[in-house]
């Protein structure tokens, strides 16, 4: 029985007063950047023409929404987030299942699997781009050439997928970090009982482990989404959004269109559009995985 629905607190009004300051601080903390963004999004404000600000109303939004690139970027954003989520959840679960078993060297393996999460994204991307994926002097090219497969031009032929690969690598350890302990916290008696009933590993997974993992998976998905929707560094460092718009996501588009041109108004409008998109995605996911927040009543 979880804490939420079970008790009807006796002094809830008092408690709310006690806790109000921190919730209010939280509000203020969040609302200030948001308010500033909304304010600037209605202005025509270019950093290189200071003092010439004017009210733009919906002008910035109209400019952005009429631009074909915005829709391509939104699509890329969703694709990027979706694919990385799938990869990290899939491999995160797989690796967790593996690391849940007891075998010699398990602790060391766990350490190494988690390591990528500690590296700065810019550096990760540079290592992948130049040391590993470069078709001339990268390691992957050397390996594939040695077995006669020639070199794959990752960033020309599959720019978005290359980025998905890099980001998936960065975030799978995070999924493992959350899913593995969840697996390990499974009630051992339940598992034992199932085994005695003759359940094989697949049935065990489907009926016991997977349901238990659904809630941590939702947490992983939610947190990853927060970061992935505004992914920027990896794209900036590897493909520069290209070729064409193939690897441009919303954050990179805002950077290019608005920041490189120093159009603060347009950057802010782009930010607001990003939040709206993010909210839609989150609401959609909530509906799909509705169970998770439903018991907050």
């Amino acid at each position, binding site marked *: 029985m979880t804490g939420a629905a079970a008790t009807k607190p006796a002094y809830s009004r008092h408690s709310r007063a006690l806790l109000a300051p921190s919730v209010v601080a939280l509000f203020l903390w969040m609302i200030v950047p948001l308010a500033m963004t909304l304010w600037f999004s209605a202005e025509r404000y270019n950093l290189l023409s200071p003092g010439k600000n004017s009210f733009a109303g919906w002008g910035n939004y109209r400019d952005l929404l009429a631009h074909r690139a915005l829709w391509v970027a939104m699509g890329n954003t969703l694709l990027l987030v979706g694919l990385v989520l799938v990869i990290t959840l899939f491999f995160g679960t797989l690796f967790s299942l593996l690391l849940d078993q007891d075998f010699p060297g398990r602790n060391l393996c766990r350490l190494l699997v988690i390591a990528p999460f500690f590296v700065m994204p810019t550096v990760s991307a540079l290592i992948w781009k130049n040391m590993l994926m470069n078709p001339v002097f990268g390691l992957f090219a050397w390996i594939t050439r040695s077995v006669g497969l020639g070199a794959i031009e990752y960033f020309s032929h599959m720019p978005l997928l290359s980025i998905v690969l890099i980001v998936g690598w960065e975030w799978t350890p995070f999924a493992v970090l959350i899913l593995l302990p969840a697996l390990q916290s499974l009630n051992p008696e339940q598992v034992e009982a199932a085994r005695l009933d003759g359940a094989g590993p697949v049935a065990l997974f489907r009926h016991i482990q997977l349901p238990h993992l659904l809630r941590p998976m939702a947490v992983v998905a939610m947190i990853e989404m927060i970061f992935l929707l505004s992914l920027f560094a990896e794209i900036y460092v590897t493909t520069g959004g290209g070729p064409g718009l193939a690897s441009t996501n919303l954050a990179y588009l805002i950077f290019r269109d608005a920041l*490189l*041109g120093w159009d603060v108004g347009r950057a802010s409008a782009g930010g607001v559009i990003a939040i709206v998109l993010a909210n839609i995605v989150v609401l959609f996911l909530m509906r799909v995985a509705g169970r998770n927040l439903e018991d907050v009543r």
Partner: protein
Amino acid sequence: MAIESTVLAWNRTWRVLALAATVAIAAWILYPRGGRPELTVATVNNAEMILMQRLSRDFEKQNGVKLNWVVLGENTLRQRLTIDISTGSNTFDVITIGSYEAPLWGERGWLVPLDDLGKDYGYDDIFPVVRQGLSYQGRMYAAPFYAESACTYYRKDLFRKAGLEMPVQPNYEEIRHFAQRLNDPAHNVYGICLRGEPGWGQNTALISMLIHRFGGRWVDMDWKPQLTSPPWVEAVSLYVDLVRNDGPPGAIADGYNENRALFANGNCAMWVDATSGAGALLDPSQSRVAGTTGFARAPMAKEGRGGTWMWCWGLAIPSSSTRASLAKRFVKWATSREYIATAGERFGWMRIPPGSRQSTYENPAYLAAAPFAPLVHEAILSADYTQPSVLPVPYVGLQYVGIPEFQAIGTEVGQEISAALAGHVTVEQALALAQSEVERALKGRSRK
């Protein structure tokens, strides 16, 4: 039970946190601070600037100053500096900017004019085109640190083996022919390496030089974009053909650095790019082809005029700095003839900041150490900053257009062209898309 053990864990966690906090605070308090006047200097992380950082310890001692350095990659630095200076924040005393920003920021009054550094500064020694690139309406807003033009790097050994000879002034037809002959993917050697990475300072810079060479221009005198004009199509088609047929795989991700690494590693027979790579390519510790690298002028098209390259890094002082006179002393020191001489003697003549002063190219020690020096000298002298194209243009800038919108425009155009390079679209389609992007960005700009 569970509660006791968790309470114990609780105490332990508190103790660890408290210890960590104490360590952090102690380090913070005990960190030494001095009492000398301080200058905050922002610079790019290129090799020449790193040497300046090292030599500046002399300056600190001579002047009783402490220098605080902010060293960043070019793009990050530019972003940082632009925000800073356009909002009038008093953060930096000396900044490193290029010939793109200097006139724009000078125009807006964000920089301190540097025409009063003294008679011994040698203003006449600075190349006129370099000085022009850093000035606005005749006043110099940044002191030149080093400048570059463009050239053709090539492998003398590969040319010899194939029985070919690189003329001092090649044209693009010859380059095409050479690239075809020398392209040898089986041995990981490619005919020609050219920038492919999208970016206003990456592939667009090269394209800009190319279209100007072929007699094109970015906009006409009414600021109407010309990206679908025949010179553009011809230049970009040549570029795409060259790279797709005789260039390395994955050229789309190769900017200046990657190409320099490829050439230094022996993977390119030719490389057309900025002259600033010359010193490193002749240095055996940085290049496997140090003994066989040759230099020729940047290729010509049939026009024979226009389409050169000039980029200059300079030191400037924001108007909002409260230490302008001290900053001026530093700027004068770092960009003087004496500095170049000291750098040459201390670190070797290949590592001095090149391309800014006539005296550098009259210095026998430098000429002896740098075989490419006459070529670079010539290239810089032939660059006409205000006449990028044979056609009249309303803008300045050779491999860029000196307007504030250009960073965004250049990057957008670069992205579209890289799509053609990747084979996703044809050259005409890419240029049509790029044209509409530039039209959108320049809406409202007309002949003033």
